[in-house]
Structures are given as C-alpha cells and as structure tokens.
C-alpha cells in the first residue's frame, strides 16, 4: 500500500495544525465559494477558495456586496448631515465612528470641546468598544461551535445597548457624538447605572474567560492557527487587536493621544494588552481573541476613571447653525475596536466636503486573509476569518 502512496510537495501549503493531518492522496483542485451568504462571514462577503481535499490552497476575497457609496455621499451632503452615515460603516461601533468623524471635522474647525462632553464621549466610546468586543468574542465562539458563550456575551451587550438607548434613544445607530460635543446630556441616574454596569461586568467578564477563552476545546481550535508574524502585521498595516495580537505594542489611545486618553494613561488607569503567544505561536487566532477579551476589562477601567472625574458644564460647544468648515485638509485617526479608523477630509470652505475618505480598519486588516488562508484546513478557515473580527459594513462602506 505504502508504495502506491504518491509523494507530493505542497510548497508553502503546509497544514496549519502542525502535521496532525497526513495527506497521502492528491485530489484535484476544487473551487468553493465561501459565502456570500455564509453565517461565518457576519455579513455578505465572498471568498473564493481553492481546496485540495480539506486543505485550502488559495483564497481570493471578493468584496463590495455591502458597498453603500459612503465616500460619494460625503461629497453630496452637508457636514452635519453626514454624521448618521458614519454610524453605518461599522455598525457594531457606531459611537466610535461618530467620534472619528467629529474629531476630524473639529480639527478643521479648531473648536474647543467642553470637558464634560469629552468625558461623556470617552464613556460612550469605551462602552461601545466593550459591546463590539462582546459580539466579536461571542460570535467567534459561535463560528467554531460553542453556542453558549454567545448567549452570555449578548446578555451584557443588551444592557450596554439599553444604556445607550437611555442616553440617545437608539440602540445601534446612535449619531450621539456630534460635531462640537455630544447631542444631549446624560439623563438623571445614568452615570450611576454605568457604574453598576462596570461592577457587574467585572464579575461576568471572568465567566467568559473561564467558559471560552481558556477552554481546552477553544484553545485547540485556535492556537497555532492563522499565525500572523510581526513583520507581516506591519507590512499589511494591520491595526487594533490584530496588530497587538501579533505582539506589537501599539495603541493610538496611548501613543498618539486624542481627547484626554493621554491624561488617563498618565494616571495609570489602563494598560494596553499585547499578546505574548501564551497558548502557541505568537500571532495566532487565540492571541487575537485574548487581546479582545483583555481590552474589555481595560475599557471598564477607563469608564470608571471618567465617572470619577466627571465635571459639570455644557455638553456641546458653540457652533453656527449652518456649518462652514475652513479651507484645508486633515487626516485624523482614532482607535476603533477593530483598529485605526481614519478620516481624511478636504474642505474648500463650503457647506459640503470636497472629499470624505474613510480609512476603515477592516478593509486593510482583511487583505491579510489572502496570505494566511492558504495552508489552513477548511475547518480552520472559519476560525481564521472569525478571528479577524469581520464586519463587512466597514470593509465595503
């Protein structure tokens, strides 16, 4: 029998599991459409995979199914009117998108933001980061077969959304952080409830760690899979948890501080979790999941700091009714849950922008899939795609 087993060279396509699978029969290349309507793509994305048996030998992402012309719309509506569109690119982190756009326009305007508004902005952005990571972590478990943690994470996210509903009336697309500040002040008792949420979350967070993160089945499915080296992460301009998951110590909140993140850092209120490759190779799927889980608890610390330092005062600066932005160009990048969300805005002094460029973190982070999918098993491909924390609304805009 062994004489008839052909020796095949797969080139770079070595199983990612580290030799747990023996390949002895060459099967013809089969092209498989992963998506567009696959539940693990969390949206509408298609990856054309070339497979040889259970082995992925090539992957070509096809995008654009959720393209909604965000940049073209930016050239056709007024500055303030564009804000609700920012909600729609990364719909799991709308507060952060509002914030990124508002900061970019404010950089051109040169307006002063009231202290209370800044603190409320940070609370909302960090709560939204927790919510986004809860979905990322919960659905990641769901993708690779753990159903229960998903229900747990959505339980806390529900509370987070209820908090947002109390402050702005919407549950998913908030448009709450406006140019010049925030839309309105927090209702009575809101800060106390946020503090209660933080206390409860500390306890619940430990449940996710015990239930999923250090679960042996989860570790087996994710460790040593989809390894992104440090060099690759820099070359592909990965940002956010995917960059820190590869062991690069970089976070815009600390390293290029905006609002009062620098002040919070100097107070020692939060840390930046950077993966160390505890369960396998540095930069594998488990490391990325670990970074997200750790970031949640750091966000809670930032929220607590803001609650402790809350001041009274106005929540929105003085702005003219029709906003005219001075001539100029600006690029402002902020740390979104998924990485650096950049807005490059060009104004000619009119009511409408000349160019609204959205540098979405997902669009850049996803380009790495073409390189890390080949060599994985088909089952691991789901684990790899899930570990990038995919939101197609952001990729396609």
């Amino acid at each position, binding site marked *: 029998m062994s004489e008839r087993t052909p020796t095949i060279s797969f080139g770079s396509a070595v199983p990612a599991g580290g030799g747990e699978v023996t390949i002895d029969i060459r099967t013809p290349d089969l092209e498989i459409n992963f998506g567009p309507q696959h539940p693990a793509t969390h949206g509408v994305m298609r990856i054309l995979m070339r497979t040889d048996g259970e082995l992925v030998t090539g992957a070509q992402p096809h*995008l*654009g199914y959720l*393209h909604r*012309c965000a*940049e*073209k719309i930016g*050239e056709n509506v007024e500055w303030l009117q564009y804000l609700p569109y920012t909600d729609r690119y990364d719909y799991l982190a709308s507060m952060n998108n509002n914030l990124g756009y508002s900061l970019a326009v404010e*950089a*051109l*305007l*040169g307006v002063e933001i009231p202290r209370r508004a800044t603190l409320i902005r940070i609370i909302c952005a960090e709560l939204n980061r927790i919510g986004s990571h809860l979905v990322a972590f919960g659905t990641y478990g769901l993708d690779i077969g753990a159903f229960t943690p998903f229900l747990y994470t959505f339980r806390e996210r529900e509370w987070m959304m209820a908090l947002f509903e109390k402050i702005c009336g919407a549950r998913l697309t908030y448009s709450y952080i406006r140019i010049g500040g925030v839309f309105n002040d927090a209702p009575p008792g809101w800060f106390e409830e946020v503090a209660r949420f933080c206390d409860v979350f500390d306890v619940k967070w430990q449940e996710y760690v015990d239930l999923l993160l250090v679960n042996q089945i989860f570790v087996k499915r994710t460790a040593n899979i989809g390894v992104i080296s440090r060099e690759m992460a*820099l*070359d*592909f*301009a990965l*940002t956010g948890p995917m960059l820190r998951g590869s062991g*690069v110590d*970089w976070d815009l909140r600390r*390293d*290029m501080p905006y609002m009062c993140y620098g002040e919070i850092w100097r107070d020692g209120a939060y840390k930046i979790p950077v993966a160390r490759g505890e369960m396998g190779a540095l930069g594998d799927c488990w490391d990325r999941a670990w970074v997200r889980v750790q970031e949640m608890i750091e966000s809670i610390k930032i929220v607590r700091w803001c609650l402790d330092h809350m001041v009274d005062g106005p929540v929105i600066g003085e702005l003219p009714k029709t906003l005219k*932005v*001075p*001539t*100029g*160009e*600006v*690029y402002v*990048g902020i740390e979104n849950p998924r990485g*650096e969300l*950049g807005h*490059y*805005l*060009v*104004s*000619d*002094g009119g009511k409408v922008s*000349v*160019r609204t*460029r959205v*540098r979405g973190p997902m*669009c*850049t982070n*996803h*380009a790495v899939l073409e390189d890390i999918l080949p060599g994985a098993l088909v089952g691991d491909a789901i684990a790899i795609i899930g570990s990038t924390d995919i939101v197609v609304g952001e990729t*396609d*805009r």
Partner: protein
Amino acid sequence: MDFQGLHDRLLAINAPGLVGTDEPRKPNPKDKKDKGRAGDPFVIVDAQQLVLFLEVCRDDDRLCFEQLIDITATDPSKDGADLWINVSLLSLKFRHRLQIKCLLPKSAAELPSTVRVYRASQWNERECAEMFGIKFVGHPDPRNILLPDDWLGFPLRKDYEFPKEYHGISCE
C-alpha cells in the same frame, strides 16, 4: 519628530521626488480673500517617484515608517487638470505621521504601484483605481474591488454622471 523635523530629515537624506511642502497658515488680515488653510501639513512628492520616496521613508533609520496607513486619491475640482494622490504613513517606533500628496494629471493618470514597498496598499490601490480611473502600473491584482466588474465610469471623480440604469434596472 514634528513635521519640520521630518522635512529636514527628508532634505538631509535627499529623498527622491520631494517637491515641496504644503503647510497650514493663518488668514492674511490685509487680504480679505485669503482665508488661510487649516489642517495638517503635507509634503508634496512627484507621483512617478512615489515608490522610491516610500522606500526611503520605510528604510531610513530616523524616519522608520513601518506602516502605510492609507493610500487614496482626491479629485479637487471638476475643471482642474490634476488629481491628488494622498498617502498617510505611520511610524510606530518614533510615533510620528507623515502625510504625502502627489499631483497626477487627469489626462495621464498613471503611476507605479506601491505594493512592492508596502503590501498594505494592495486593496487601497484597487479601490483608488476603480473610483478615480488611476492606473497603478505593476499592481499584482488589478481587479475592481468594491464595484462590479462591468461598472462604467469613475464614481468619485467630480465629472461623474450617475447612471440612469444598470442591467435594465432603472435607477431613476
């Protein structure tokens, strides 16, 4: 390093293709028409030498731009003769950013692809190409990325006319 320091360093190492700078300035109080310019400072680079310029930026030990955060284009006006290429670089080691602008004539919108220097530009260049009709010579995978393969016209150009129908489906 601040912008002045970066510019000095670029001059000192004689970076290829460096044309000049475009810095924000306050309005001139004597001239009412001069409104000044807000925002970020830019360096202006010759588009055809952009790849060489980026290579220097990446490899120089005092600039050390490890990441190409974004590459995109802008059509500043309908009647203008030029498009802009906007590149944003980030150095994690020294915590500084550099914004680069290149002028590219609309009549010959071609420049060498930067994928050779930074793989990050692969998808952004594809988007730029389909939206502005810019040809990145030497791009490894020059397909459309967000638009369908048979899309006509370049949507983010200012002279773009919205289609009246697409495959028999009326858009009006």
